[in-house]
């Protein structure tokens, strides 16, 4: 027998079966792709979180370091201010003490300590000392002891010991 038409090649799957298989494969592929995309994105987030945590730890350490440095500078500043104030008070204290000495009295030696003052000098009379120098010394110090030694010319050499017992 001879046929004028060539025989069609018969497909293994029917047309609709093919369509279904392609459709199911495509949807599955899309779903796998979508799930993989989310999974990879999640992994990236995880990696970023790890880096951020490391950054937080490093920055927290830096903050701690800066805080310590800041506190130390504040301490240095405080010390400097304290020294400046002390020097200023000392200068004023010495100046005020020396300003107390009246003109007729000559000092030979003066020793200023934190809570005491020793003055050695020469006064023409005991009264000059007692009227001009003793009252201000008594107003400052809690204890004032003075010893006089008469000199050949009639003037007096004196030593004055002044002690401050309480905080002033």
């Amino acid at each position, binding site marked *: 027998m001879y046929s004028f038409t060539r025989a069609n090649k018969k497909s293994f799957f029917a047309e609709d079966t093919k369509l279904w298989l392609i459709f199911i494969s495509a*949807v599955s592929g899309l779903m796998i792709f979508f799930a993989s995309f989310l999974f990879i994105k999640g992994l990236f987030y995880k990696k970023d979180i790890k880096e951020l945590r490391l950054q937080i730890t490093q920055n927290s350490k830096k903050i701690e370091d800066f805080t310590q440095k*800041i506190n130390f500078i504040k301490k240095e500043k405080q010390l400097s201010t304290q020294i400046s104030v002390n020097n200023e008070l000392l200068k004023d204290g010495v100046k005020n003490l020396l300003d107390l000495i009246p003109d007729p009295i000559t000092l030979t030696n003066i020793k200023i300590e934190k809570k005491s003052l020793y003055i050695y000098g020469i006064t023409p009379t005991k009264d000059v000392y007692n009227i001009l120098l003793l009252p201000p010394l008594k107003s400052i110090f809690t204890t004032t002891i003075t010893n006089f030694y008469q000199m050949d010319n009639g003037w007096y050499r004196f030593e004055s010991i002044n002690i401050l017992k309480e905080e002033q």
Partner: protein
Amino acid sequence: MKLKLPKIPKVEMFGIDIIKNMLFFTLFVVVFLILLGILVAPSIKMFKKEKRDYYTVKLEADKVETKLENKTNEYQKLYRENRRIILALQREFDKNNFKMFAKKYMDILEIKDRNISVYDKKFIKKTYVVTAKLNTPVNFYKFVEASKNYKNLIKIYFPIVFKAKNGDIKLIYKLEHFKVK
């Protein structure tokens, strides 16, 4: 022996095999649900969790970064403002340099080392006893006033002795030098 499977009846409508298509649809739904349950849903869950965690950590990181920035600025400002003090506290005390500095006000005759101690845990305090000669106590006041601009941090302290000697004044005072430990 031949296995005899039950034959599925063929139901067609407009040339479409209804049973086969129903089976494929069922297969599609099953595959869809399996993939959804096994792959997509856990991925979404994991993604959402990581995203939420990321933004929580990011917020914390931003806060810490802002805090660091503020601390850095605060430190730099404080350093600039107190540079002189900071540098002064790092320098060693040089007796010759101090003599040069004090020369304007008094002649330093001697600087004796007294002792070294730790001050406030972080500083070292070196004490010296200075003997000097000056014309008038006013120079001492000026010297104390000028000492705040000296390159070291120094404190003039008691006891202070003024002694009249050959028309001049012999001055003895305690000098404390502070330095970072």
